[in-house]
């Protein structure tokens, strides 16, 4: 970890720069920064459940898509945009509590498998419910209902900051310690009195609220939503790659990962979406194989635990 002072100072500088950005930047870069902040928020959300507990979720885009749809359905009814944002988070909450209650009883790989199809099922469900959602043709919002780009930017900014503060607060708390204990050895954590089911559920619900709110803001900014965009596999991929690249289970890793991946995308890959995702795949594979701790591991000065302990239980079959 960075030292506490360096960490706080860089955070303060970052927040000040981002707060004055709309005064300086043109519409294009402001729009880019809004997307970047959205990815920071999503990455932190994924980090809260998967980075902290090791329960890899392949279905977090579902909460994001549901938040988008909640806002897209409520805005035309005259609901103010900030209330739509809260509604987005509440819808994600309403799904995550029963879902987490059911799936978090499963151990890691089974949870991952159960989450893998969730996004697809949500997409089919929303597409089939034509009366409510307009089916595959999606919902277009009229521009006068929408907040300005600057408002969207600041809202996304607040969500990203809130997500990072939540992760930092968890990381430095007893709760965070318990989550990491679950990641390293769930059985042992249970044995020493950690209420693993309650902890996992709390982390899961927190990690669902943020994408729900971010999805609601996104739809106000793009003014259009359809099932393919709301439940896009690319959102899942980006979330996972950004966290793994930056450093999963850390406070700054997801911010770093989101910044670098979005920056690279802007510079090189915007013209070639398939090549862009392919390179994200290469990045994920390389990180998992060669740098499991992500970029943050490169900054680690003092190793509190031996790397082989940090890497988790080894079950090499040939002994």
């Amino acid at each position, binding site marked *: 970890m960075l030292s506490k002072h360096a960490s706080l100072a860089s955070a303060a500088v970052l927040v000040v720069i981002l707060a004055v950005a709309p005064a300086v930047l043109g519409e294009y870069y402001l729009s880019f920064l809004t997307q970047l902040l959205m990815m920071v928020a999503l990455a932190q959300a994924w980090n809260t459940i998967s980075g902290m507990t090791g329960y890899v979720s392949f279905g977090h885009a579902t909460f994001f898509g549901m938040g988008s749809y909640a806002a897209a359905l409520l805005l035309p009814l005259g609901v103010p945009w900030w209330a739509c944002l809260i509604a987005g988070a509440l819808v994600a909450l309403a799904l995550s509590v029963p879902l987490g209650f059911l*799936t978090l009883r*499963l151990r890691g*790989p*089974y949870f991952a498998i159960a989450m893998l199809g969730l996004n697809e099922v949500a997409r*089919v469900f929303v*597409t089939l419910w034509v009366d409510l959602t307009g089916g595959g043709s999606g919902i277009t919002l009229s521009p006068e209902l929408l907040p300005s780009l600057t408002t969207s930017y600041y809202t996304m900014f607040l969500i990203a900051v809130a997500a990072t503060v939540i992760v930092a607060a968890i990381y430095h708390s007893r709760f965070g310690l318990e989550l990491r204990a679950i990641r390293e050895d769930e059985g042992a954590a249970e044995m020493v009195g950690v209420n693993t089911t309650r902890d996992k559920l709390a982390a899961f619900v927190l990690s669902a609220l943020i994408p729900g709110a971010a999805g609601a803001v996104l739809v106000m900014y793009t003014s259009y939503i359809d099932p393919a965009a709301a439940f896009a596999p690319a959102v899942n991929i980006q979330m996972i790659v950004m966290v*793994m690249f930056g450093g999963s289970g850390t406070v700054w890793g997801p911010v770093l990962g989101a910044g670098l991946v979005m920056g690279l995308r802007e510079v090189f890959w915007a013209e070639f979406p398939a090549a862009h*995702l392919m390179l994200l795949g290469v990045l994920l594979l390389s990180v998992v194989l060669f740098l499991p701790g992500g970029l943050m591991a490169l900054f680690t000065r003092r190793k509190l635990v031996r790397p082989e302990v940090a890497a988790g239980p080894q079950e090499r079959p040939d002994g």
Partner: protein
Amino acid sequence: MALFEPTILLQLLIAGLLTGSLYALLASGLNLVFGVMRVINIAHAEFMLLGAYLAWVLYVYANVHPLLSLFIVVPAVFGIGWVLERTLIEHVVGRPLLTSLLATYGVSIIMVNAGLLVFASDFKSVPQLQGAIVIGELAISKPRLVAGVLAVILTFAVYLFLEITRLGKAVRAVAEHPHVATICGIDVQRIRMLTFALAVAMAAAAGVMLTMIYSFSPDTGADFIQKCFAIIIIGGMGNFLGAFYGGVLLGVVEAFVGGFGTTQWAEAVAYLLLVLVLLIRPTGLKGMADVK
């Protein structure tokens, strides 16, 4: 329409059994890799699509019939799997299962998007063996019949290989206990290369036959991997024959849901079955309790 007429029920049953056999061929490869290597290969269905696209290329550019291209595609994908295991998958063996999930997720992202770059996202198919055989009031689609029967033959050929041959016994020994297998003089790493290559070759064979039945795009794998996971969890993770029964069961259930409801709901059946089984038995119906 009288849905409960015996002919219609029989028709649905046969259609389900044939599709299910194809699922079984695909899923038993995935289960073999899990059983022997303790690696969950999320990219498994992408190898099916690799087989499908190779067969499509051979058909379009060289006019090779899919049944003939099996003899080219299956060895080719076997070779690719062999090399890939040695260079990549071998590094995640023995690491926590989540590592193999994330690494093969990376492989899947690369393969899907490479497919999109090369073939674009439009749907392809190979219109061969079209039409149906009519027996009395029953109509059985020719490509489904051929694919289903071939899939059963191939799955059982692999099963016999595992049961009877010396090499197959070595594979099972590694699945049972890698350490003891090493002591007995088995080259465990070579067995893992063989296992992975065999598994993706089975997926490719399923893919070649898929070209005659469905239209496919680089994204098609997502549906199939979901089905595979449902199948191996129903049938028991790591249990080769279990995957076969699970596959056939899923095929039949899907056919009946598709027949009585809508095809779109049939798509969700695999997921609902999967979640249901996981809730009743958190480690799968015949799963190993010690899997972490």
